């Protein structure tokens, strides 16, 4: 059972397309599109959004048969009035507590959120993953040592580790998704070569290829587990050649 995600877009095609894209990287996560108006025009529809939220709230077990419900829903939106429609939908919900709106770029944010949800992150961590994609998307080029996405911490890390990438393709989308998804569910602030380890897009901006050494710094209760998690994945080549 994972956190579910609803996508509100002005365009049915955009909503359907981005859901299709994210579903590839998060096959077990319920991701529902609410795009366009009821009659297929450009715009947003409260009814579509409410229907998607309703479905998301009852199909979190992935089968829709047990009625256990998801552990929460994160909503991503595109342009201004999609945000307003999503906010309006929350006013109509009987129990809006488990539904969080993410202020994130739609495509990068959805992929990051879906991956975090796939990794078992809770609803707050899923929203955080989506919103972390904003900084990474805005930041120019690889590097990121000065990026706005790294956790601000002047204290020495509770745990560190250095791991060399051994797989041919290095830190591309799937490995970044695995790393970010797993870290999002841990109680730790993690940086990898200076970028937020829970941000899939942040990790991808590192442009780290085979042979690159990843320097992992972690703060918090799960710091040690976080470093071990990253180290385990990297040393296993993410299960890739």
């Amino acid at each position: 059972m994972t956190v579910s995600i609803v996508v509100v877009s002005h365009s049915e095609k955009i909503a359907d397309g981005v859901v299709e894209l994210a579903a590839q990287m998060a096959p077990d996560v319920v991701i529902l599109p609410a795009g366009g108006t009821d009659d297929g025009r450009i715009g947003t529809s409260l009814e579509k959004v409410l229907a998607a939220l309703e479905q998301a709230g009852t199909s979190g077990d992935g089968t829709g048969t047990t009625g256990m419900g998801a552990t929460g829903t994160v909503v991503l939106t595109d342009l201004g009035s999609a945000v307003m429609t999503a906010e309006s939908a929350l006013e109509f919900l009987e129990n809006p507590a488990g539904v969080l709106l993410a202020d994130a770029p739609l495509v990068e944010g959805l992929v990051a959120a879906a991956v975090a949800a796939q990794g078992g992150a809770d609803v707050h961590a899923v929203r955080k993953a989506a919103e972390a994609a904003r900084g990474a998307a805005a930041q120019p080029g690889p590097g990121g040592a000065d990026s706005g996405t790294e956790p601000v911490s002047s204290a020495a890390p509770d745990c560190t580790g250095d791991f060399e990438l051994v797989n041919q393709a290095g830190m591309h989308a799937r490995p970044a998704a695995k790393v970010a998804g797993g870290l999002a569910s841990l109680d730790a602030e993690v940086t990898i070569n200076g970028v937020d380890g829970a941000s899939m897009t942040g990790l991808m901006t590192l442009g780290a290829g085979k042979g690159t050494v990843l320097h992992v710094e972690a703060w918090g209760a799960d710091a040690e587990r976080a470093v071990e998690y990253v180290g385990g994945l990297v040393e296993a080549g993410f299960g890739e050649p």
Partner: protein
Amino acid sequence: MHLDVNWAVKWLTLCAQAMAEHRVELIELDRAIGDSDHGENMDRGFQAVLAKLGESTPETPGAALKMTAMTLMSKVGGAAGPLYGTAFLRAATALGDSAEIDAAALAAALAAARDGIVARGKAESGDKTMVDAWTPAVDAARAAADGGSTNVLGVLVAAAEAAEAGAVSTDPMVARKGRASYLGERSAGHRDPGAVSSALILRAAVGAAA
């Protein structure tokens, strides 16, 4: 005199008439500084409200306004949908299950509607939006109701006149919210379509009570 559900139904019916009659005018206003869909969207939204009223008769003014909120948010499509939807929803909440609306309750419902628009759209007075029609309308309605007047028609007239003056006041403003804000200084010299449709809605409320 009190307003009741018959007034609410007539108000919504007159809103639909007004949007149909002013559809082209609203399209033209929106073409100048927006994406020219406001007239189309408002007409479609209120025609859908009309259809809903044909299916079932609401029992209270609040129920009529809540149905309108839901319908506008689902059928309008553009930003006006959630903005007017929230306005009607908050007004419905303010009215609760009351069968009759007196002057004070009316002024409070109008204020709740305006507050909903502000909360949803984050616009302030002077931004060249529907808030520039609603805020003077709410102030005028409160002044009329606070005078101890039990005359709901007087409150409605005060609100409508202030909203119409408020819409005119958007002419020289430079837009700071919505699609029109992309035009910057070039948005000055045009009337805000949302302020105009707001004034039409409040004028329809007078017609329904007269």
